[in-house]
C-alpha cells in the first residue's frame, strides 16, 4: 500500500506548473493501471474525524491535512516485492513538490495478533467450536 502524505503540495505552484504536474500524475497512474499494477486507489477527503478513548468517547475534527504528514490518498499496488513497490513510489511525479510516499506491505494477519499466535489460535478454535455447536443445533 502506498500512502501519499502531504496533500497540499500544490501551494505556490503556478497554474502552468500545476497543470504539468497533474498531467504527469495522470499519465503515471494510467501507466500503472495499464500494467495491471493497481488493485485500488482513492484520494481521501480533507474532512474527517479522529476517534479515541474507551468506547470511542472522544470524537475530534481532524486530522489536520495542512500538515506534511497527513495522508491525502492511497494506492494498493500489485507488486512482486517491496523493491518493486519502492521503485514505483520513486517514480511518483509530485515527489519534487514535497509529498512523501509511505510504502507498506499488506499483511494477511495483524502484527499484534502475530505476536500472540497461541491466543489467536485459541480464539479461532473457540469461534470454530461455536460454529460447530450452531450447525449441530
Amino acid at each position, binding site marked *: *500500500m502506498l*500512502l501519499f502524505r502531504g*496533500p*497540499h503540495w*500544490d501551494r505556490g505552484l503556478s*497554474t502552468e506548473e*500545476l*497543470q504539468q504536474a*497533474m*498531467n504527469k500524475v*495522470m499519465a503515471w497512474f494510467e501507466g500503472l493501471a495499464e500494467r495491471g499494477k493497481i488493485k485500488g486507489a*482513492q*484520494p*481521501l*477527503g*480533507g*474532512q*474527517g*474525524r*479522529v*476517534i*479515541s*478513548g*474507551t*468506547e*470511542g468517547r472522544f*470524537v475530534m475534527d*481532524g486530522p489536520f491535512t495542512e500538515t506534511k*504528514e497527513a*495522508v*491525502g*490518498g*492511497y494506492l494498493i499496488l500489485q507488486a512482486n516485492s*517491496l523493491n518493486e513497490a*519502492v521503485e514505483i*513510489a*520513486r517514480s*511518483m511525479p509530485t*515527489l*519534487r513538490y514535497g509529498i*512523501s*510516499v*509511505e*510504502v*507498506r*506491505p*499488506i*499483511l*494477511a*494477519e*495483524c*502484527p*499484534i*495478533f502475530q505476536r*500472540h499466535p497461541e*491466543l*489467536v489460535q485459541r*480464539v479461532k478454535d*473457540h*469461534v470454530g467450536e461455536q460454529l460447530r455447536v450452531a450447525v449441530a443445533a
Partner: protein
Amino acid sequence: MNTTTKSDYLLLFRGNVWDRGLSPAQLQRVVSDWMAWFERLKAEGKCAGGHPLEDEGKVVSGKQRTVADGPFAESKEAIGGYFYLTVADENEAIEIAQQCPGLEYGAVVEVRPVADVCSVRQRAEEYSPAQLAGARA
C-alpha cells in the same frame, strides 16, 4: 434527499504497540472482539475489506527520491491497518469507528471520507477551470 445513497469511508487504525502491557485475558478478548467486529461488518455489507500493514516499510521523499526505512515501529501515530467502509453517512462511519476494540487500550481511529476527485485537482479547478481543462482530458 436520497436515503439509499451510500458513502465510502476509510478507517485508518493508528498506533501499533497498544498490545504492550495487556494481560493474556485482555489480549484474548481484544483479539476475539476485533475478529468478530470485522466479520460482522463484512457480513452486514458495511465493510468491503481491510488489511493490517506490516510494521516495516519505506518512506520515499524529496527531489532526490530518497528511500528511507519507515519510522513505523513503536509509534502512536503509525498506521497499523485500515477498513474500507460503505455506509449511509459519516455518523454511521463514526459509530462503527467507536466500536473498535482497540480504543480502550490506546488505539486511535481516523475516519476519512473517500473522495471522487483529488483535493489538489479540486482546488486547481476552483482557481482556473478553463486553463486546467487539458489536465483533465
